[in-house]
């Protein structure tokens, strides 16, 4: 292993490219041993997808760490139960690691069922559970038959892949839930009427409420949400919807495909980030139903919101024009939306990276950015640092681990991840985004930095 002229690990070269130049992008590989990877594990992926289900008992089966690091950090808002904001775990100790954790897990489930009336329990099997060989499925069967509740094993040993495999584990758990609990009746196109499920929105800062309101306004019923502000009763009805709309494609395309196969619910990909994406997505949903009334209402909504939002955004353009953006986010689809949003604001994306982007995503990304922009998969902090400096980025859009790095470089920052505090989706969100970007970029605090 060695460094190339850009100071990048030679083994990492294939994961980095410049805009539209040269060959296919490598992605989705395993992180290198010894790297300061920004990447998380299978359990992390499963947990972030399922955690927003607000009335479920999420029991983390393993030593305490996996539970404590994921305790109420998701930023998903709930209109009902706040059960999901608690941390449940088996807090395995040495004794259980030697003799097996099944007894403790069973007792933990018993303690929940004896004191509360759970409708739904998820049991997350972490790294160690796979290694010590606990038969978690047997506990699920035992508890389901004894307590008349759904108990679902989420197979998520951290070592079995990256976050992406965790999304899949979560989607498998959701399928299991729907298949075992769905009320009978016509499903999918056959009997769904004008209804959708929203997939891949986690209701950060209340974003799913914004989108649900749009859909309500144009006459589309939202049956279920995956998984922002969702509840057991709602999720099991999901197979009855006529259409799945998929926002976070990275985490939920797999579920959408499986639901199409099993329940016959078709899906389309949408994005509610940025005015153009919001408008296009609303029209696509309306067109799917092939219903003049809905199309009329969608157009009316767009006509009412789009011009005034664009007028709002235009106010920010003088404050933002020509500034350079770096993007490092989870999924490829979000990166694409962000590049478009920056364009709308007169900004240029000089670096775009994702943790879980796919080949197709990288193709689109490369076609959207200038030829000298850097595109990278699973970047480490050194690469981010190097390319942000090299490209003269003025602002970074990323998550919690990237924030202090950006600040240390004197680069402005916008959290487009779990810790966003203002909704960034929808027309309202587009304005919030511009405002947040502008506030960070134009804050007086940067003036005090001695170069």
């Amino acid at each position, binding site marked *: *292993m*060695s*460094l190339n002229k850009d100071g990048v690990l030679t083994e990492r070269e294939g994961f980095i490219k410049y805009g539209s130049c040269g060959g296919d992008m490598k992605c989705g590989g*395993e*992180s290198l*041993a*010894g*790297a*300061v*990877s*920004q*990447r*998380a*594990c299978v*359990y*992390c992926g499963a947990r972030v997808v399922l955690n927003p289900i607000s009335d479920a008992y999420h029991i983390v089966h393993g*030593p*305490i*760490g996996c*539970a*404590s*690091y*994921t*305790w109420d950090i998701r930023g998903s808002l709930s209109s009902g139960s*706040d*059960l999901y*904001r*608690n*941390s*449940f*775990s*088996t807090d395995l*100790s040495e004794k259980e*690691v030697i003799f097996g954790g099944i007894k403790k*897990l069973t007792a*933990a489930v018993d*303690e*929940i069922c004896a*004191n509360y009336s759970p409708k739904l329990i998820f049991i997350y099997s972490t*790294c*160690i559970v796979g*290694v*010590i060989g606990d038969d978690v499925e047997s506990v699920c069967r035992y508890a389901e038959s004894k307590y008349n509740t759904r108990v679902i094993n989420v197979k998520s040993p*951290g*070592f*079995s892949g990256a976050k992406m495999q965790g999304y899949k584990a979560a989607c498998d758990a959701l399928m299991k839930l729907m298949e075992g609990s769905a009320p009978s009746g016509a499903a999918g196109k056959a009997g769904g009427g004008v209804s959708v499920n929203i997939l891949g929105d986690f209701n950060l800062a209340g974003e799913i409420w914004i989108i649900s309101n749009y859909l309500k306004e144009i006459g589309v019923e939202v049956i279920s949400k995956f998984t922002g502000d969702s509840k057991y009763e709602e999720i099991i009805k999901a197979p009855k919807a006529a259409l799945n709309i998929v926002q976070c494609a990275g985490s939920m395309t797999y579920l959408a495909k499986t639901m199409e196969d099993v329940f016959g619910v078709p899906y389309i990909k949408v994005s509610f980030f940025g005015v153009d994406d919001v408008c296009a997505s609303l029209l696509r949903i309306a067109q799917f139903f092939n219903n003049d009334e809905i199309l009329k209402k969608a157009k009316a909504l767009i006509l009412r919101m789009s011009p005034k939002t664009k007028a709002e955004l235009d106010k920010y353009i003088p404050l933002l024009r020509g500034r350079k953006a770096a993007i490092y986010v989870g999924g490829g689809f979000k990166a694409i939306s962000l590049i478009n949003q920056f364009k709308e604001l007169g900004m240029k994306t000089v670096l775009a990276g994702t943790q879980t982007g796919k080949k197709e995503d990288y193709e689109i990304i490369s076609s959207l950015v200038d030829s000298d922009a850097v595109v990278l998969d699973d970047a480490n902090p*050194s690469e981010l*640092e190097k390319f942000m400096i090299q490209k003269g980025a003025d602002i970074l859009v990323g998550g*919690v*681990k990237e*924030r*202090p*790095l950006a*600040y*240390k*470089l*004197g680069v402005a920052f916008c959290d487009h991840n779990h810790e966003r505090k203002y909704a960034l989706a929808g027309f309202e969100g587009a304005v919030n985004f511009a405002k947040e970007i502008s506030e960070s970029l134009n804050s007086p605090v940067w003036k005090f*930095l*001695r*170069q």
Partner: protein
Amino acid sequence: MLELTPNEYKERKALRINPAKTCQPVGAMYAALGIYECMPHSHGSQGCCSYHRTFLTRHFKDPVMATTSSFTEGSSVFGGGSNLKTAVKNIFEIYKPRVIAVHTTCLSETIGDDIPTIIGQLENVPEGKYVIHTNTPSYVGSHITGYSNMVKSMVKYFSKNTGVSNGKICVIPGFVNPGDMREIKRILKQMGVPFIMFPDTSGVLDSPMTGKFEMYPKGGATVEEMQDAGNSSCVLGLGETAVSAAARLLGKQCKIKEHILGLPIGIEATDDFILKLTEITGKPVPEEIEEERGQLVDIMIDAHPYYDKKTAAIYGDPDTVLGLAEFCFSLGMIPKFLITGTPDPSFEIKGKELFDKFGAKDGFVKHSADLFELHQRLKSDKVDLLIGGTHGKQIARAENIPFLRMGFPILDRYVHPYMPMVGYRGAMRILELLLNVLMDKREADAADEDFELVM
């Protein structure tokens, strides 16, 4: 919030709800960051490393660098030895640290990776560079145990008595913020005591803004300092749970006298600390320190009507909770509940000693406890003040109790990593924050006619 929590307390044997601890590796990672030019290395799945870095970043608001062995299915079957060897090679080549501090995880412990043997087989460790390790199975102890173990390993790997005394004392701080470590050093300098301190995260996790990202910021104890620690006249461990093991090991390994105190939180524990320093060194207490103590007492007297006889519940790490509890007692407050998630039977013994010392009859102290239990107990026995890390905020809101954020982790406020809670200055800061939350609450609840300008 937290409608889930029933009023009635029921014993739980298996289910942990809302823990007051986290796992060993994050404590080991934090300790390792207190070495200059050190790369902490997590030997396990990449998720562990990512979580620990995120967790520390959320508390310290600074970049946290650490590497991972990136375990796969294969490593979990065949062992992680080759991952570790590859990792070490890569880390020295790419990130160029002086020290790699390896800690284990539940996974690598369970599959039985023998780290000392793997380290022994390492080729290509560059001259003058080091790979050290500690075992931190996540299913034993807590983050405090992990901190303790990593500090012990620093002693084990580095400290030697060469037979020539350096005339310094070696100070080992417990699990505290960089602001505390900075304050301990300030006090030692004020006292004119030559010292070596490790670990030392000041200058690492409270580093200044320079416009440059430093993989290894200026702070941290150097390898030479840790080696020379064995030539100190004695070692002083501050925090019985977190560092007594390391202090004792240093004492034994290098045949120097060991002293162990609690964290110097509040007036009495700081008195003990200062007196211990004068006892060890024979140096008098300088006027500046007398002045600071006098200022603290002055504030305590000025403000006492606002905190006297207020009851409190305190949770968090053992040494921190006991320190804060003693300070509350000194103020005339009544700490009723002392809770730690860390498994540590001595916490209960020391808590009871405190209750006895201050004549508190119905105090409740428990180790291996969780915040759900604390919440249940508070429902039937309400207190005037809740003290601890961020995770208590839901309880504070649900029960309408003023909330003082102190300890680890604090995920929802700023500035705390830079500021001390130890020493007389730290006590003043605790008092200011404590009075602010109590007096803000009093004013928020006050009827119009009772809302006064002067307090």
